[in-house]
C-alpha cells in the first residue's frame, strides 16, 4: 500500500475504490431509525479510556451493519463509573451504561443493541416510580 502523505494521495485511493469508502450521510434515513450512542468524553472519561471505547463502538457498529450514530457528549456526572455511554434504541428510552471497557462495549452491542436484552452495569437515570407515573 502506498504511503498516504497528502490529500491528493487520499483522493487517489478513494477514487480507486469508490465502492469501498462510505460517504453516505448519516441521518439521511431519519434520526428516529438510528441507534444513538453517546460516549461521555470529559476529562474523567478520556482518562478512563473512553476514546478507545468510542473508536471501538464506531468500528464495530459499522462492521456489524448496525445503523448507528455515535457521538461524544460531556460529563454526564457518573465520573465514578467511567467510561460511560448512553444508548438510545429507536423508540426506546435512553439507557446509560457504566464501566464500558471494550469487552463490555462488545457485550452491549451484541446483547442490547442487536438483541434488546438488558446488560449488567446500567446506571439508573430515568426510572419511573409509581408516584411519578400519571
Amino acid at each position, binding site marked *: 500500500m502506498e504511503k498516504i502523505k497528502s490529500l491528493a494521495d487520499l483522493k487517489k485511493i478513494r477514487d480507486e475504490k469508490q465502492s469501498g*469508502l462510505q460517504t453516505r450521510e448519516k441521518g439521511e434515513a431519519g434520526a428516529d431509525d438510528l441507534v444513538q450512542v453517546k460516549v461521555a*468524553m*470529559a476529562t474523567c472519561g478520556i482518562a478512563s479510556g473512553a476514546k478507545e471505547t468510542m473508536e471501538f463502538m464506531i468500528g464495530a457498529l459499522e462492521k456489524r451493519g448496525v445503523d448507528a450514530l455515535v457521538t461524544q457528549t460531556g460529563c454526564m456526572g457518573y465520573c465514578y463509573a467511567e467510561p460511560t455511554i448512553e444508548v438510545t434504541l429507536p423508540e426506546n428510552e435512553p439507557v446509560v451504561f457504566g464501566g464500558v471497557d471494550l469487552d463490555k462495549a462488545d457485550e452491549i452491542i451484541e446483547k442490547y443493541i442487536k438483541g434488546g436484552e438488558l446488560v449488567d452495569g446500567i446506571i439508573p437515570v430515568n426510572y419511573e416510580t409509581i408516584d411519578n407515573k400519571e
Partner: protein
Amino acid sequence: MKEIALHIMDVAENGVRAGAKRIEIAIRQEMENELLHITVEDDGHGMEKSELERTKDPFYTSRTTRNVGLGIPLFRQQAEMTGGKLEINSEPGKGTQLKADLHPGHPDCQPLGDLEGCWVLLVTSYPGIEWILNLSSEAGEFSISTTEIKSALEVKSISGIELSEHLKRLIRNNIDELGLYQELGGIHLFKS
C-alpha cells in the same frame, strides 16, 4: 491521562462547549530548545478575566453535573512537570487560546500518543466545526483541515471507518516524517 494527545483532545472539547466554529490545534517542535509547543485555539464565547483566573483551580468548572474541572489543571501539571508551562488567553466574544510548552527531553514527559486518533475522533464527532491541525518541526510543516478534506474528497461530511483509518494514516505518516517526538523522555531525540 497517559498521553499528551489525550490532554489536547480534552481541552479542544472545551472549545466545542464554548460554541466555537473553528478550532485550531498546532504543535511545533524545536529540537534546539528541546521544546514541544502546543496551541489549542478556538473562536468560541471566550471568558472574562475572572473566569480565566479560575480555570487554574481544579475545583472550578462551568459544568453543572459536578464540582471539579480537571482538564486544564492536569494539562498544566503535565507541562510544569517537564519544566514547561501553560498559559491561557481569552477574550469574551472572541475566543480562547491555550498555549503549552513541554520539554520532551524530561523523563517525566508523557509520550505524544495517538494524536491522529484524537484529531479524527474530534473531527467526526463534531462535524459542524472547522478543525485545523498544524504540525511543524525543523524537518518541515504539515497542515490539514476539515475544509480541505471535504473539498479534496468532494464529500459533505467526514464519516465512516475506512475514511477515518486513511486520514489517521495520512496524519501519522506526516508526524513520522516531521520527526515529531514520540517516546518517553525524548530518548530517541538524542540517538545519533
